[in-house]
């Protein structure tokens, strides 16, 4: 457990109560309840189709649950739009990279600051006076992110030309540029080689450590999950089947069964 977590162990930044979601006749999430405490790294795991990505989509307001409530920073609601979530400090990355491929690393990360720009499009286009000052402030912040993620060398490179592992890092950079309180990472290490994975793990831990950012991540690599997360929730067919520390979850029989594919009743 990180020091940050112990200090604020009683203060969940996000609480999900009885979340249910169905698409037509398919139940994706079935009465799921758990919380994410401030400053922790929270992993969401489960076999394919367990509803992990849907869970993230519910948290950042992309899906609206059919039932249940979301309490974020003490405010309870049933519906939230993605842009509201972004403004309130929730940022995310995607399972399939969603960057602007023709734009440079710098510009892509700059878009992460978009919700914080006070001047409108016209001011920004003119690039004078307050708009200019504002842009310079944002740029300085973006440069801090670039330095943090050690991607100075690709600052000007269009992201479409970057290898996969670096694109993932740029995407993390864009999420960090929004200075989030809660960072949602959807399979940040998928498709990476072991060296890229190690780098990414270090960045996730550093983000948590240096900025105190709360992180919820979906990940398939069990080694990574057990190493870096403080608490783990396990979903299977939309149901929550376990919730606890990595060690507790590892020994849970239902989890083992779900992963080993034991015949269900």
């Amino acid at each position: 457990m990180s020091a940050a977590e112990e200090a604020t162990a009683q203060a969940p930044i996000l609480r999900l109560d009885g979340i249910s979601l169905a698409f037509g006749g398919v139940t994706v999430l079935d009465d799921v309840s758990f919380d994410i405490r401030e400053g922790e790294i929270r992993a969401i795991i489960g076999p394919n189709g367990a509803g992990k990505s849907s869970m993230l989509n519910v948290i950042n307001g992309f899906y609206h649950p059919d039932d249940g409530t979301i309490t974020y920073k003490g405010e309870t609601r049933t519906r939230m739009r993605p842009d509201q979530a972004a403004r309130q400090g929730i940022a995310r990355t995607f399972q399939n990279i969603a960057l602007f491929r023709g734009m440079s690393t710098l510009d892509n990360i700059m878009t992460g600051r978009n919700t914080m720009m006070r001047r409108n499009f016209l001011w920004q286009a003119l690039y004078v006076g307050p708009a200019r000052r504002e842009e310079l402030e944002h740029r300085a912040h973006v440069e801090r992110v670039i330095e943090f993620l050690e991607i100075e060398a690709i600052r000007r490179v269009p992201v479409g030309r970057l290898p996969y592992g670096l694109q993932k890092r740029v995407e993390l950079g864009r999420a960090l540029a929004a200075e989030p309180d809660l960072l949602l990472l959807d399979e940040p290490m998928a498709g990476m080689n072991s060296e890229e994975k190690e780098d990414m793990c270090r960045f996730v831990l550093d983000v948590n450590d240096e900025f105190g950012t709360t992180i919820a991540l979906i990940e398939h690599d069990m080694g990574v999950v057990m190493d870096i997360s403080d608490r783990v929730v396990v979903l299977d067919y939309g149901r929550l089947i376990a919730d606890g520390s990595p060690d507790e979850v590892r020994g849970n029989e239902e989890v083992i069964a779900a992963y080993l594919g034991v015949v269900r009743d």
Partner: protein
Amino acid sequence: MTGAANALPDLSRYDTSPKLLRRNAEIRGDRPCLREKHLGIWETVTWGEAAAQAREIACGLKTLGLERGDRVSIIGDNRPVLYNAILAIQSLGGVPVPIYQDSVADETRYVLNNAEVRFVFAEDQEQVDKVLEIKDECPTIEGVIYHDPRGLRNYSEAFLCSTGELTRRGRDYDAEHPGFYDGEVARGAADDTSVILYTSGTTGNPKGVVLSYRNVLVSALNSVRQEGLGEGDEVLAYLPMAWVGDHMFSCGQALVAGFCVSCPESAETVLNDLWEVGPTYFFAPPRIFENILTTVMIRIQDSGWVKRKLFFHFLEVAKVHGKRILDGETVGSSARLHYALGALLIFRPLLNTLGLTRVKLGYTAGEAIGPDIFDFYRSIGFNLKQLYGMTEASVFITIQPNGEVRSDTVGRPAAEVELRIEDNEVQFRGPGVFVEYFRNPEATAETKTGDGWCRTGDAGFIDGEGHLKIIDRAKDVGRLTDGTLFAPKYIENKLKFFPDIFEAVCFGDGRDCVTAFINIDLEAMGDWAERNGISYASYQELAGLPRVYDIIQGRVEQVNRDLAADADLAGAQIRRFLVLHKQLDADDGELTRTRKVRRRHVSEKYGSLIEALYSGRDRCGIETEVTFEDGRKGTVRADLQIRDIAPAEAERSAA
């Protein structure tokens, strides 16, 4: 640039680096001293600020207990704060011991223990971790000072201290003891140790080369004077701080001439930083110049036909006139005009994209540079020169003077340096000769003779014009039975500079003549075959084609003509050669992993071929075991042709 400010310092008065720093802060306090890119923006440290920072760090080190003569290590990429740390250590009479930032723990531990280092400046978490890992085995280390705090917040070791904390303590100490710092600087003298640089010996443990202020600063002053460097110059410090070259350029010459040293943002951004900084003075090993040229050529091949035609047209013009214009020789006005047009359309824009437009002095050293590569840069107006030096000489042994630049020599002795050739070995004497190897009197005695001469371990000779020519490592040089000097690497390098020769191995020590194995370059030779409609099924078949032999014979004859021009080497011309049927390969143990020929292994493995070369036969059968890429082994049989070559005449036309 005013004359007064640019006057070179009087080293009898400013006899240590900290005193020169103070001088620079006084006469050019607002001029840039160091630059670093921070958050995407170049930030400048002036000489005045650098002096103040060095003072704070020095006083901070005092609070940690640094005494005169203590050794302090610096591990990290080139950073302004680390350069200032070196000056701070020197201010208190301490001795900086820079360590290569990519050294593995074993090497780092050896140096820390050998130099009995008390404090370590580590750039970041990576270097701190490296030191922490071995600290238990390095009993002399009392403190580790880090610069970048990232990732180190939860490190609780009491001996860790940030540079921020160190300078805070230093400021307080300075306020309480106002005369302390200046007093310590005044105590320094020319013959104090200024730095210990460890050389990565090819055999055995590294040796710590002890250099005095006199060594470093006199050598720096002489070279600055010869090349006309001044406070307006700019360098990019991208080579390791533990390497003598960087120490000389960024610490020695920068202090003497007062020019600005820029530090790259990261190792990966060097080429971009080069372009942004636009240095006027640039050093790179031959490999880097070769890589840049290859990239340029590939891009030109991919460009539109107009650009391509223009490029190659003006490259021809440059080949004929460029070098002579750069050397200040008389060239006709129409040729000058033609060249000027090329400069306008091609050469200047090309140098601009490389970030080399402003370079007035480019050095290369370390190994032989291919004449084509060397001539390319000079012909397009880039003043590339070779120098010959080593850590034990405080870099400079010879420098090519302007107007006397050749691709096959390393120039004349640097100012105040004397040269002699003793039993083929190059020896030198001068102000830069090192004091000793740290705590290693035996090695010192092996390298330094009693009367001040220093052995280089390189074989060479001084040509008719007084230029030094390095031919090989002294221990590899042999003699033919008639006593003629035989330098295998020198001949092999000449052969390898041809693009269609991949590798060459020469024999001759204790024999009556020189013979050679040649390895063709599959890519270059294959390209030639394709263009000439010659079909071949395998490397072996291509290598055995009579027309390929004809080409190689032409190359060998060219090399012989070159050798004939040198009186000392004319007798060591290649008399017989064969083209090997397989590429020499590290997997078969014929090359090292760094692609150097393992001479002994090759001569054992191909012993029968060597005997055939010396037997007078014109063919020889051979069966060799090869290792395929998937690890399987097989055998290759071949019947190789051997060709005789007539020696070239001793005289040649002045071409």
